[in-house]
C-alpha cells in the first residue's frame, strides 16, 4: 500500500512538473552562474564544514564529503 501511495505521489509530482518549465530559448537567465542552485561550491563546502563541526545535524544538499574528528 505504501509503495502504491509512493508511486501515485511520484506520478502526480512528475505530471505536475511536466506542465512547468521553459523552452530551450528561454534559458538565458537560468544558464548564468549566479542562477545555479550552488553558484559558489567552495562557499557551500566551507559552510557545511563549519556547521557539521558545530551542530548535530548535517546533510541535505548532497551525499558524501570528508569526515573529520571535529572537537
Amino acid at each position, binding site marked *: 500500500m505504501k509503495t502504491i501511495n509512493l508511486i501515485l505521489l511520484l506520478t502526480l509530482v512528475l505530471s505536475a512538473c511536466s506542465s512547468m518549465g521553459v523552452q530551450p530559448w528561454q534559458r*538565458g537567465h537560468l544558464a548564468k552562474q*549566479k542562477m545555479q542552485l550552488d553558484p559558489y561550491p567552495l562557499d557551500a563546502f566551507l559552510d557545511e564544514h*563549519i556547521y557539521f563541526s*558545530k551542530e548535530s545535524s548535517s*546533510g541535505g544538499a*548532497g551525499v558524501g564529503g570528508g*569526515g573529520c574528528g571535529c572537537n
Partner: protein
Amino acid sequence: MQLKKPKHIRSVLTAATSTLLAGTAQQAVAEVEIPWQVDSAFLYYSEADRVTVYEPVVAIRKEMGDDEFVGVRLVLDSMTGASPNGAMPTDSPQTFTSPSGASTYTTPAGETPLDTSFHDTRVAVSAEWEMPLDERLKVIFGGNLSREYDYNSLGVDATFSWDLNQRNTTLTTGLSMSQDQTNPVGGVPTGLSPVPTTAGIQKSTQETSETKDISGLLLGITQVIGPKTLLQFNYTFTDEQGYLTDPYKLLSVLDNNDQLRVSDPYVYEKRPDSRQRQTLYLKGAHQFGTDVLHASYRYYWDDWGVSSHTYDIHYRYELAGGRHYLQPHLRYYLQNKADFYHYSLQDNNIPAYASADYRLGDMSTTTLGLKYGLVLGESHEFGARLESMKQQAEGDAPFENNTAVIFQLNYSFLF
C-alpha cells in the same frame, strides 16, 4: 561553470570550423585547448576564547570533452585553541588531566572548562569524475580522503542525474559510503569510566582505535518553474554504525547536594553505536531584475532524538552593471537535544548513554554575513565575506554561548 562557458563555446566553434575546413575530426580535437578552472579560498574561523581555524582550499576542474569533467580539491585545515571538555563550571577551580594523561590543566572558578591541549592539522583530498551515460543521464563519481593526527576518513560516492521534460525536470539519486577511524591520544576511553584526576594515572581504555561506517542515500528532484525560477527538493538518509562517541568529552557527576562528587567527579561520555539521520531539503533560486535570491529550508531528524530546522537566505544585489555585487546572508538553525544529552549526571543514577556536548543540547545558531564579489573579467572573480555566528542555549539549557567570526577570501580563474 559560467566562468569558462564563453571560452568553451568559442573553443567548440573553433573546433567545428576547423573540422569543416580540414575535413578530419582528429586534427580539430588536437587544436582545442580547454583551460583548467581554478577556484581557491582561504577561510579564517575564530571563536571567542576557543577554537581558531585557518583553512586554505584549492579546487581545479577541467572538461575532458563531450561533457566529461574531472576535478580535484585539496583542503588544509589548521586548528588551534581550546574546546569545551563537557564538564560544568563550578564555584571553585577545577583540574583535569589532558587526554594523554601526562599533564593537567586548571579551569578558574565560574568558567566553562576548556581543553587547551586541542590543536590539529587536517589534510583532505577529494576527486570527482563527471561523465554522460547518454544524452539525458549523467553520473558523478567521487572519492575523498582525509587525515589528521588522530582521525582518518575514506569515502566514495556516486550521483546519477536524469533529465526529463525538455531538461526542465531532473531526478537525482546519490549513494555514498565511508569509513572513519579514530586513534585518540591516550587510547579510546571506556564509556562512562572515571576520568583520572591526577597526571600519570592511566585511564580505563577499551581499544587504541575505533571505526565507524557511514552509508548515505539521496533522492532529489530539481524543477525549472519559469525563466527566472528554479526549485530543488531532496530527501536524504544516512546510516552510521560503530564508534560515534567523542573520546575527549566528559561529564560532571554531582552528589545529592548538587556538588561534584568527591571520588571520580568526572566520567567519559558514551553515545549509542548506531545512528540513522534523515533530512528533507527544499532550495529555490529566483532572479529579481538582475538580483538573485537563494533560499533553503532543511528539516532534520534522527533516532537519537535530535531534530532541527535550518533556514538559509542569500540575496545577491548587483552593482555597477554586474561588475560587483553585495550579498547579505542570513542563516538560522534551531535544534532539539538528543535523548541522552545531560548537562551533568547524578551520582547513583548513571544512564546507559550520556553526553554533555553542547552540540547535542537544545540550542540555536544565528549567522549574519555579507559577501562582496568583484568580476574581474570573463575568467576572473574575487570574493570576500565576513560573517558573525552565535550559538546559544535554548529553553533551560544552561551552557555558555559560543560566538565566532568567519572571514573568507575567494579567487577564481582559468589556467
